[in-house]
């Protein structure tokens, strides 16, 4: 019902020629082409925004782009119609944020996964390698065969960053471990190809792997299904995906995009929002590993203790995890 | 030679409804196609046990009428009665249920099935074919005996000659219990001998009490076969007459609406030098089948050479090879003394045209015209590159419209509107556009294929006169036609093709239907006397 009212208000807004609604606080989020229900990156942002709406009763606006030129248009629309803070999801929106942020210096922009250096842009990037290190440890400890796998989405530096952290984590537990790595593809469709994800996972199982980590957006769904069908273990990514197949989901490398979105909205509302770069790692609870009722039985107390110890060590700087992109 | 002896007696043997009641009657039929009034208050009564002809020019509405009776179209008004009872016919199933069968101009047979399978197709009983087939075999054999319709029930239909395929169509209708049999232009694809066989069968059917409706535009057939005839023109019935009380000239005048010349008046030919010379030509069609082999002949200035033959004996491929649109396998073609290089397709067609060759193709809609073009565009096809029609990169629309417009006037195209879509002209007028385009440039050699197919009598007369006039100007004309009448009345010399070869040549004076017919059926000219006994 509230949404209807907001929609009606928005409609009046358009009729009035797109005038800004000055008084209300309106946060906004622009999802990228994956769409807000991708069960992964964009959906995490959606969950954060929903949580903010539930906690504060403040409605937010959102939009899913369907072609590249819409990114700029959507950001501009949000700014012009009075959104005080606009969260842009994904590195692909960097160029659009750069353009629109200059046009609207009063509007706050939060860009996830990429850096744009402007005073009214907050760039949020994650230390995915740290979280991947922890799930790499989990994989190595859970593996009976001494072989684990990694299925990436599109072959870009970001995903190699996931992979490297995972490898280092696994080797931290077992220096002799064998690790298979496959990327799903080189086009953006690699983010949404569960069939191929399943194929890659099965081939890794055939080669002896018994735990597979998918950092591949929607493609991961196929990887998890393949693990369930083969009775092997899989590790989710971005959101907590443990619930998808309880019993075969070993854990998830959570990247708290939801927290980033929530915090961006909250800070803007409270007036504490600041531009600049935010790097969220284990220390900031920006990344982590998921332990809940769905995977409790798969994680022994010993594993849990080891992983938590490593977590503390990384935060304290006793363990250095290599950042692929900083190499 | 018609079956006059049967007339009169037949009328008393109606299959139903008693004497005097028509077997089939249509009353006040109305049918519109868009703005075209295809049938305007058409009423016809067909007496039981007779052969009733319906004659008219193309587009007179006769096929439309029979399509309404057979249920392909619904009439916009009027009534159909079978045996005196009004019936509703919504589709061919209804027509068959009322004992009406139809034999189409284009056969509706499955080529890969046997005769028997074709006959039972669509009326199989039960789930297993076997019982149906054995019952059908007995029934088929009975029908064949009764009417002299000899066909091997186990022959594959595709391997049968056209005349026998037509018998299968007739058997199909009879097997479905047709008392009334409609035949739509049944003789178009038959040799004269096959036509005789068909007529014999039809007479036998009539004598057994069946009723036959024959749709045709050939007056000769009407005179030879029918008991009564209905003449249609422009969607209306002109008159009903007893065949015995009329003649061809009178029927033709009724069809056209004025008196027409059925013979072409022409002087004796005065042949000059050979303008088209063909030596041992062999041609394969597009699927690689050898269609023409070892054909040699010449056409001289000032003569019309006719090529007679049953459709499908290589005439079409010969014509296309001469025009350049089909590559020849071997042999030479010389125009005006100079040989033309063997080539294929478009470039050759263009080269031939440059050498002074005009070509009225056999199938104007498939080849001679682009029906989606307007008449002016169709009217320059093949000549659209001429300088007259082009101004730099652009075509000069004005020049094209003017040129084609004046040709349309000259060739009596109605309406003479170059901006009208080609498809909107009637068949005869489309043909006049093609003929006009090819003749108006006065080519030295003119190839003409089926110039009057689907063309009404008035236009036939016009086209024939034009051809003779061209001949008299000293042009060489090669005429290919399956209409024996046309060949015999126009050509100064007649070549007969059979199985891809020329099997005989006769002069116009020597030509008669019987001789030509035998040659068309594959008898060598020299054996014709003996075979004729």
């Amino acid at each position, binding site marked *: 019902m509230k949404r209807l009212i907001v929609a009606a208000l928005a409609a009046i807004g358009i009729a009035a*020629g797109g005038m800004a609604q000055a008084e209300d606080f309106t946060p906004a989020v622009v999802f990228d082409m994956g769409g807000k229900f991708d069960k992964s990156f964009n959906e995490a942002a959606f969950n954060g925004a929903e949580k903010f709406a539930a906690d504060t009763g403040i409605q937010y*606006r959102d939009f899913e782009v369907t072609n590249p*030129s819409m990114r700029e248009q959507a950001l501009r629309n949000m700014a012009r119609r009075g959104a005080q803070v606009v969260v842009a999801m994904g590195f692909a929106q960097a160029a659009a944020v750069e353009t629109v942020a200059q*046009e609207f210096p009063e509007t706050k922009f939060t860009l996830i996964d990429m850096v744009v250096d402007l005073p009214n842009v907050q760039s949020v990037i994650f230390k995915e390698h740290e979280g991947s290190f922890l799930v790499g440890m989990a994989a190595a400890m859970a593996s009976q065969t001494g072989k684990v796998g990694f299925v990436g989405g599109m072959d870009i530096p970001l995903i190699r960053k996931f992979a490297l952290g995972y490898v280092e984590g696994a080797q931290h537990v077992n220096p002799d471990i064998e690790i298979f790595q496959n990327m799903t593809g080189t086009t953006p469709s690699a983010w949404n190809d569960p069939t191929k994800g399943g194929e890659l996972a099965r081939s890794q199982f055939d080669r002896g792997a018994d735990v597979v980590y998918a950092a591949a957006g929607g493609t991961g769904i196929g990887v998890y299904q393949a693990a369930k069908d083969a009775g092997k273990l899989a590790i989710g990514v971005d959101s907590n995906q443990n619930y998808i197949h309880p019993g075969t989901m070993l854990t998830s490398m959570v990247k708290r995009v939801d927290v980033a979105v929530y915090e961006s909205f909250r800070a803007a509302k409270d007036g504490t929002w600041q531009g600049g770069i935010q790097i969220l790692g284990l220390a900031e609870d920006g990344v982590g590993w998921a332990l809940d009722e769905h995977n409790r039985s798969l994680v022994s107390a010993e594993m849990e203790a080891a992983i938590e110890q490593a977590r503390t060590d990384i935060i304290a700087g006793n363990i250095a995890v290599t950042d692929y992109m900083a190499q | 030679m018609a079956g006059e002896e049967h007339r009169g007696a037949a009328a008393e043997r109606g299959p139903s409804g008693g004497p005097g009641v028509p077997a089939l009657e249509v009353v006040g039929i109305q049918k519109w196609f868009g703005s075209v009034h295809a049938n305007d208050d058409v009423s016809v009564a067909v007496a039981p046990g007779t052969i009733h002809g319906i004659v008219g020019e193309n587009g007179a509405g006769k096929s439309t009428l029979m399509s309404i009776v057979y249920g392909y179209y619904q009439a916009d008004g009027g009534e159909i009665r079978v045996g005196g009872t009004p019936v509703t016919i919504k589709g061919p199933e209804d027509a068959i249920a009322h004992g009406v069968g139809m034999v189409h101009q284009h056969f509706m047979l499955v080529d890969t099935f046997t005769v028997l399978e074709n006959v039972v197709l669509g009326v199989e009983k039960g789930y297993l074919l076997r019982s149906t087939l054995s019952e059908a075999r007995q029934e088929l054999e009975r029908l064949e005996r009764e009417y002299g319709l000899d066909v091997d029930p186990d022959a594959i239909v595709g391997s049968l000659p056209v005349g026998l395929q037509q018998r299968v169509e007739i058997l199909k209708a009879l097997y479905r219990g047709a008392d009334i049999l409609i035949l739509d232009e049944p003789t178009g694809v038959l040799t004269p001998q096959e036509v005789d066989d068909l007529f014999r069968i039809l007479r036998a059917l009539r004598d057994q009490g069946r009723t036959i409706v024959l749709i045709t535009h050939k007056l000769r057939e009407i005179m030879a076969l029918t008991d009564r005839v209905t003449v249609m023109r422009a969607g209306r019935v002109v008159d009903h007459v007893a065949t015995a009380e009329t003649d061809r000239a009178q029927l033709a005048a009724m069809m056209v609406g004025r008196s027409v010349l059925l013979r072409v008046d022409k002087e004796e030919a005065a042949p000059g030098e050979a303008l088209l010379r063909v030596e041992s030509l062999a041609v394969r069609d597009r699927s690689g089948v050898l269609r023409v082999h070892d054909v040699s002949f010449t056409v001289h200035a000032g003569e019309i050479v006719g090529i007679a033959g049953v459709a499908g004996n290589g005439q079409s491929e010969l014509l296309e090879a001469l025009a350049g649109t089909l590559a020849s396998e071997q042999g030479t073609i010389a125009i005006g003394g100079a040989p033309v290089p063997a080539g294929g397709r478009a470039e050759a067609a263009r080269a031939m*045209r440059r050498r002074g060759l005009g070509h009225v193709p056999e199938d104007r809609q498939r080849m001679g015209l*682009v029906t989606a073009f307007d008449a002016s*565009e169709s009217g320059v096809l093949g000549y659209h590159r001429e300088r007259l029609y082009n101004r730099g990169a652009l075509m000069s629309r004005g020049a094209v419209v003017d040129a084609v417009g004046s040709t349309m006037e000259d060739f009596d195209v109605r309406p003479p509107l170059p901006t009208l879509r080609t498809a*909107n002209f009637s068949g005869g007028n489309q043909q006049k556009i093609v003929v006009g385009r090819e003749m108006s440039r006065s080519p030295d050699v003119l190839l003409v294929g089926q110039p009057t197919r689907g063309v009404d009598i008035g236009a036939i007369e016009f086209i024939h006169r034009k051809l003779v006039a061209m001949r008299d100007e000293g042009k060489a004309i090669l005429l290919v036609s399956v209409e024996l009448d046309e060949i015999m009345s126009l050509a100064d010399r007649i070549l007969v093709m059979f199985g891809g070869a020329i099997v005989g040549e006769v002069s116009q004076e020597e030509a008669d239907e019987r001789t030509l017919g035998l040659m068309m059926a594959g008898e060598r000219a020299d054996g014709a006397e003996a075979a004729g006994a």
Partner: protein
Amino acid sequence: MKGFGGPTQAPTWVTHGLVPLINLGLALVIAGIIIALIGENPFEALRLLVLGAVGYPEAIGYTLYYTTNFVFTGLAVAIAFHCGLFNIGGEGQAYLGGLGAGLIGLYLGHWPAPVVIPLAIACAMAFGAFWAFIPGWLQAKRGSHIVITTIMFNFLAAALMTYLLVEIFIKPGQQAAESRTFEAGAWLPFVHDVFAAFGANIGRSSLNLSIVVAAVCLVLFWFFVWRTRWGYEIRAVGHNESAAVYGGIAPDRAIMLAMAISGGLAGLVGVNEIIGVHHRLLLEFTAGYGFVGIAVALMGRNHPAGILLAALLFGILYQGGSELAFDMPNVTRDMVVVLQGLVILFSGALEHMFRGRIERLFARRARAVAA
């Protein structure tokens, strides 16, 4: 019977005006019912859609920007249709066109704009034409079916672009597979900047001077198809190949020519997107415009006037649809796709559902008046 099979004569305004309008209206009615079913007010949705597309200067700019793309792809499909070919490779040809424009932008962007921009346009057309010419050549000389080959070439184009962007043109140290931004010489000016130069202030949008190119293409297309002998030959081959051969027209050459022109037109999408909007090479900028071009050509009856109107309609649907998704939370972007699909379904696929009946009605009335 043949003589009566000709087209029914109904007034032109019925055939080209009323029938498309009725089809469009039906699509809107069905779309309205669906919108009502998901709990939104369909009239409000329609209002939002129309206002979102033409309600304020920036929206008009975006509508015309989409229209520009659809004009290019619509014309591309249409020229192939005139030759009897179904070119569904507009997507890949547009992709390659963008590559052509982008190469000029990347390497010659420091030259003055009056030199670079014509070069980029020519290069985009050449690349697009090349990408369509190959399937055309395969069809003409080898008989490979154009539908199959153009689909394959869409995939090849996508693979090629991905390879080039991921491995070669990617800006170092960047996540997104995008090239660096071109120098200013390779920026086709935005229309709002052009207006600003004359002191007029219109909203910022993606609309750029490619729309002028599109207008020129519409006019040239008409002259080419109906007033040149190449157009004549292409149409002759498209309508009746046997007649074309008879008329001395080589079908293989007409097919290759038509496909090359088709690809060149589709390639201009690359001009609009790459040097017009993004000023860098990136992935997936074609966003399905090549496929929508099929619907545009179908609705526009392969005539430039119709294509302009159809392109405008789809421009409105795209821009208005995104605004609708923006303002009605229940209307997701997928709903907008459904809406566009309905328009395509009724105007394209089901086009003949009512056409015959309506035309007959009017033909009969015309007859009654005549009588």
